[in-house]
């Protein structure tokens, strides 16, 4: 059904269609409206047989998810930014126990300085936690990918994080096609846990494991992740068969065919990037754009295929590691090692700075001069002044 609604409520409705049994929540901007909408649906009875838990913290929220999922209930939560870091210990724990929890991250910068706006720092802070990490590009995908996320999580026994850009998507009112319950039921069978806490068949979960087996356990997680690289495209097809839409998958190429320069990015910024690519292609430039819809597991082969024939790949990302530079860039370099393709690093949109068409044009214009990483739209004057001022102090300390 076509509806005009904000991204958060759209996700809330989509999650409700998946019939979660336990939703645990703790508010943080810009994720808040998602759990609020679910709370309303549970209270009104529209979402039946669901417990809505108002927790005392994000750490508690993820912990309650661990309990409810381990006890065999389909479980959901959402968070952002500081909330993600506050729950980080439990985030690792959930994946280590193979619990198919689905969590939405309304992506937001992590402070300090305190900043509520969008970038991908929160998702990157738990990059290595063993969760499947999917990124969506618009609100329609937010809906579709959440429905796939539950099936993916439950078929692999791994938690799945759906990343949607805070404000840009969570707060955007756009027209979306909300699936019918009957369609979702056809796609998503009831939750059948691999193992659960059951007095009739007691198991010990979360036990202590020493050096003799810990590595093997980690490798098991890795093997499951590798399986996800096959399961994700297969489920994308199954989804398309029922819903008639291409949503999800590993990577998405804007234009078929090869190009000299390919922009690789994640999340909503691809929308703007595609417009610039269209514009520049009309002017005869050999460029293309590829979006990483799955970030963990990293879709190495799919990416290689998507950028095949390129001379240069430019990674545009909203994440940054001080002392190094781009984070996704490193993944792409590793994935394209040996292909001879030059990989460049561009960082933009940190802490909610808009990534405009103009700045993406400068990104393409700078391709021939770029060495090291470049930060788009940086206020060089302010930065240089502060660096000089600080140096004077720091030099004295050395």
């Amino acid at each position, binding site marked *: 059904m076509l509806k005009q609604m904000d991204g958060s409520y759209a996700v809330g409705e989509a999650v409700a269609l998946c019939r979660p049994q336990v939703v645990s929540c703790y508010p943080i901007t810009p994720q808040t409206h998602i759990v609020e909408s679910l709370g309303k649906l549970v209270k009104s009875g529209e979402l039946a047989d669901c417990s809505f838990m108002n927790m005392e913290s994000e750490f508690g929220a993820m912990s309650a998810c*661990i309990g409810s999922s381990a006890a065999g209930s389909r479980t959901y939560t959402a968070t952002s930014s500081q909330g993600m870091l506050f729950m980080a210990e439990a985030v690792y724990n959930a994946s280590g126990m193979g619990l198919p929890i689905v969590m939405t991250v309304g992506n937001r910068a992590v402070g300090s300085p305190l900043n509520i706006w969008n970038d991908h720092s929160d998702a990157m802070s738990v990059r290595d936690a063993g969760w499947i990490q999917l990124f969506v590009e618009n609100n329609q995908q937010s809906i579709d990918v959440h429905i796939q996320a539950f099936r993916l999580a439950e078929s692999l026994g791994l938690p799945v994080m759906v990343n949607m850009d805070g404000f840009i998507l969570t707060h955007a009112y756009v027209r979306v096609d909300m699936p019918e319950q009957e369609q979702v039921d056809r796609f998503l069978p009831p939750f059948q846990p691999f193992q659960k806490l059951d007095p009739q068949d007691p198991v*010990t979960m979360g036990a202590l494991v020493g050096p003799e087996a810990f590595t093997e356990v980690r490798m098991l997680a890795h093997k499951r992740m590798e399986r996800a690289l096959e399961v994700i495209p297969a489920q994308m097809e199954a989804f398309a068969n029922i819903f008639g839409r291409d949503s999800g998958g590993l990577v998405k190429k804007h234009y078929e065919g090869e190009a000299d320069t390919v922009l690789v990015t994640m999340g909503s910024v691809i929308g703007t990037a595609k417009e610039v690519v269209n514009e520049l292609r009309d002017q005869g430039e050999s460029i293309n754009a590829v979006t990483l819809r799955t970030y963990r597991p990293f879709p190495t082969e799919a990416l290689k295929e998507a950028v095949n024939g390129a001379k240069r790949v430019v990674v545009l990302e909203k994440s940054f590691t001080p002392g190094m530079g781009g984070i996704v860039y490193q993944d792409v370099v590793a994935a394209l090692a040996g292909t001879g393709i030059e990989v460049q690093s561009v960082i933009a949109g940190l802490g909610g700075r808009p990534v405009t068409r103009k700045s993406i044009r400068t990104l393409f214009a700078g391709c021939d001069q770029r060495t090291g990483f470049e930060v788009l739209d940086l206020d060089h004057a302010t930065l240089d002044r502060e660096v000089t001022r600080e140096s004077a102090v720091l030099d004295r300390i050395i």
Partner: protein
Amino acid sequence: MQSQILHFPAKEAVIKHQQTGDLTISNRLSEVGDSLQGKTDRPNSLDSGHRACQGCGEALGARHAIDTALDATDGELIVVNATGCLEVFSTPYPESAWRTPWLHSLFGNAAAVASGIAQSMKIQRKDNVRVIAQGGDGGTTDIGMGCLSGMFERNEDVLYICYNNEAYMNTGVQRSSQTPGAARTATTMPVGEHPGNHFGIGKSVPKIAMAHGIPYVATANICNPRDLEAKVRKAMSIRGARYIEVFVPCPLGWGTASCDTIKVARQAHNCGLTPLYEAEYGQVTAVSKIACPEPVKAYLKSQRRFAHVFKKGNEHQLEAIQAIADANIKAFDLLENPLQGERV
């Protein structure tokens, strides 16, 4: 020790841990079978072969508590454990000593994980399945305090059992918020002007639990296992958030002889340092009187963690501990008969 998947109930042909003698624990002055531990078909929730130290009060407390809960619920029980000695000694890879569905997640989140399980059971309409969360005093009263308070405030249908051995034993005996004044721990060494742990205002988590107005709060002591059993049984007859704090000496951390765990625990009770009471909806409803009062000296003497208290110049520490015991005796009216209050 059993493999990972265990089935309940398991019948034991032999009565284990049967006590004899006049100051014995489980079956003292009673017919065999009066205490659950005296029965041949007791659940034996925590199997033998785990790796607790000899004389571990926590292992003893947990077995009594969980056995009773299993019995009270006909085996329909799920147990969540915080990180700590109890978790580490009971589940070394690839074994598990637990004969009940059991999950360990983290150090500070047992109450929240148990809340999730309780809600999960409710939504699956398995109201007969009951949930217990358990942990040491560190996992419960320090790092887990936020989750515990949340669990109380939401009145989740969970019994939380804290095994209080008054320090972080699993990481090598460091101070917790339950460590008493003067006590030696790895982080409160008996050196300097004020040896051992400082005398703070203290933290009574049972009282904090009571302040939440939850249906049931109790303190118990492993020196009186039948009282512990009765409290767990009562707790399992009630729905909503419940809290029991069990006093469990730790031979390793306290520097006591393994064979003295029960004796030390009883001395703690007799001197008034660990008042035993029950409370419902925030009001104290029952108090266990002290039958044979003793000064704190007798209790402290047998523990290496208090050795410095008996050194010249530290008399004030001994007095301070006695004052705490006296205040408890007064506040909870612990003496059976004021005449018996004459200390020997």
